[in-house]
């Protein structure tokens, strides 16, 4: 499997205005803003680093993957988990936002890929949507495994179906779809790939750390190549603070700490030391 592309678009640091910031599900929001420079070059899996408020006790920016691009506009899909995303959720049309991006590397598609599975846990699906669109544009058969706590927090199913991704839903409480984890669905699918019309699929995943580890283990078991997007805590998002690292195997059998913001967020699952 080829590693991720190394040609990256130029980065921009902009002040833009929010065009829309609407609830997408319980505790989740879609925020759209005009960023022609970022929209132009953004690759699937890349993210923006957002300054939520000036002169505030919240010092650092917050990273969010680019969920979709329409013309000059980009959209992010974010979950309200703490002070920053809470403040963000209270902003509205016309409020200004400092945005840096596009940052990081991107998901890649091996030549002649026949089929793909994307696995999104919670807001993790946000990192996969642009990539799903890229896969579908190439005509790649794509299954979308979408996991959430419950029906009220289920994300992106309509957006996936609109681009003809075959979605499989699971919820922790069984309020919709499979009662259980996405990992269970993944196992079931990989046990009988032919049933799902999958030929040499690649798995792409994003979600909580524990889910990623589990998905990586399953993909490995079934010898399915996997790319995953990490969501470590970030400082600079520009590769200078070394705050966002994850443990990555080196060819010599050792390991090194690589920057999720720069060498990632997308890694080959085989390379991650869990």
């Amino acid at each position, binding site marked *: 499997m080829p590693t991720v592309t190394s040609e990256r678009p*130029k*980065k*921009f*640091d902009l002040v833009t205005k929010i065009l829309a910031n609407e609830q997408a599900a319980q505790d989740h929001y879609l925020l759209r803003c005009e960023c022609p420079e970022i929209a132009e070059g953004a690759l699937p899996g890349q993210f923006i680093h957002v*300054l939520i408020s000036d002169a505030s*006790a*919240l*010092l*650092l*920016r917050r990273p969010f993957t680019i969920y979709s691009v329409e013309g000059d506009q980009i959209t992010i899909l974010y979950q309200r988990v703490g002070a920053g995303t809470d403040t963000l959720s209270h902003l509205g049309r016309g409020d200004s936002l*400092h945005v*840096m991006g596009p940052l990081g590397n991107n998901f890649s598609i091996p030549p002649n890929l026949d089929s793909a599975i994307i696995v999104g846990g919670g807001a993790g699906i946000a990192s996969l949507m642009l990539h799903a669109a890229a896969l579908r544009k190439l005509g790649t058969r794509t299954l979308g495994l979408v996991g959430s706590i419950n029906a009220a927090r289920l994300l992106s199913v309509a957006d996936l179906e609109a681009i003809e991704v075959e979605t499989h839903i699971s919820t922790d409480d069984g309020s919709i779809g499979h009662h259980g984890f996405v990992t269970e669905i993944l196992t079931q699918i990989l046990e009988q790939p032919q049933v799902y019309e999958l030929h040499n699929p690649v798995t792409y995943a994003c979600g909580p750390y524990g889910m990623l580890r589990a998905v990586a283990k399953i993909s490995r078991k079934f010898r399915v190549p996997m790319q995953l997007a990490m969501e*470590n*805590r*970030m*400082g*600079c*998002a*520009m*590769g*200078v*603070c*070394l*705050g*966002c*690292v*994850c*443990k990555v195997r080196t060819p010599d059998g050792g*390991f*090194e*700490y690589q920057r999720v913001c*720069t060498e990632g967020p997308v890694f080959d699952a085989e390379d991650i030391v869990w």
Partner: protein
Amino acid sequence: MENGSASLETNVAGIQMKNPVMTASGTFGYGNEYSDFIDLNQLGATVVKGITSVPWPGNPMERIAETPSGMLNAIGLQNVGVDGFIEKKLPYLRDFDVPVIVNICGERREEYEEVTEKLNLTNGVAAVELNISCPNLHCGGMSFGVDPKLTYQLVKAVREKTALPLLVKLSPNVTDITVIATAAADAGADGLSVINTVLGMAIDVNTRQPMLQNVTGGLSGPAIKPIALRMVWQVYNAVKIPIVGMGGIMTSEDALEFFIAGASAVAVGTANFVNPRAPLDIIHGIRTYLDQNGVRSIADLVGSLQT
């Protein structure tokens, strides 16, 4: 220099700079990372991430956490080692017209000496900044910087090895910073960098685990500005060598506070993470202030506090 405006040129500790604004060690990488946003040639100087004799892996994650108006870090000095630095990082920087100050660290005196000697033989190093204040090392690092005798010995040893301008970076985690400052000055430091991060900690109450895998880490950002300013002022009143002030500088007003307290230059750290143009905005703001207040050169501002 802009037409008709005050001079920002300055020579601090033997480092000739276009303006007195540097980027602080560990917060600006090796210069190339921010190249999409900032023209390095506009900086007064750039201080690179701490370098050790051999490459260091750094600490396990999580390495950073946000706190009110601040952040904690426990990077653990991940770096490519002095050879890697000279080979892979310095060439890029050498192409610019900006003084490169190399922050060095070690666990033992010999390591500091070894790194210094390698830098002596290298083109493109404007000065050495001796980091005796890294709070994230178990031995070495800060343990030097909290003991005046060890400080004196280490600074003297490195001083004897190099003719490069020598800055010593002090730890704020001490009872009386002037004692350490005096020891460093007596041992032959050309200037002092004040301050490194303040040792702190944060806990996730849901998991009851520390936010940093290393448990404690270094606090930086606006939260520590009052502490840093106080220490700059104390050191200014205790020693004669110039001070590079840092700690929570986000705006030109913050930087001006440091000059007035006694710093001859300032370094911008955590602010880079929030606003990559912060050093340039600060340079611009300082120039405006000097012009508006009829101050002819930055030197006239240094230590001008009216008490």
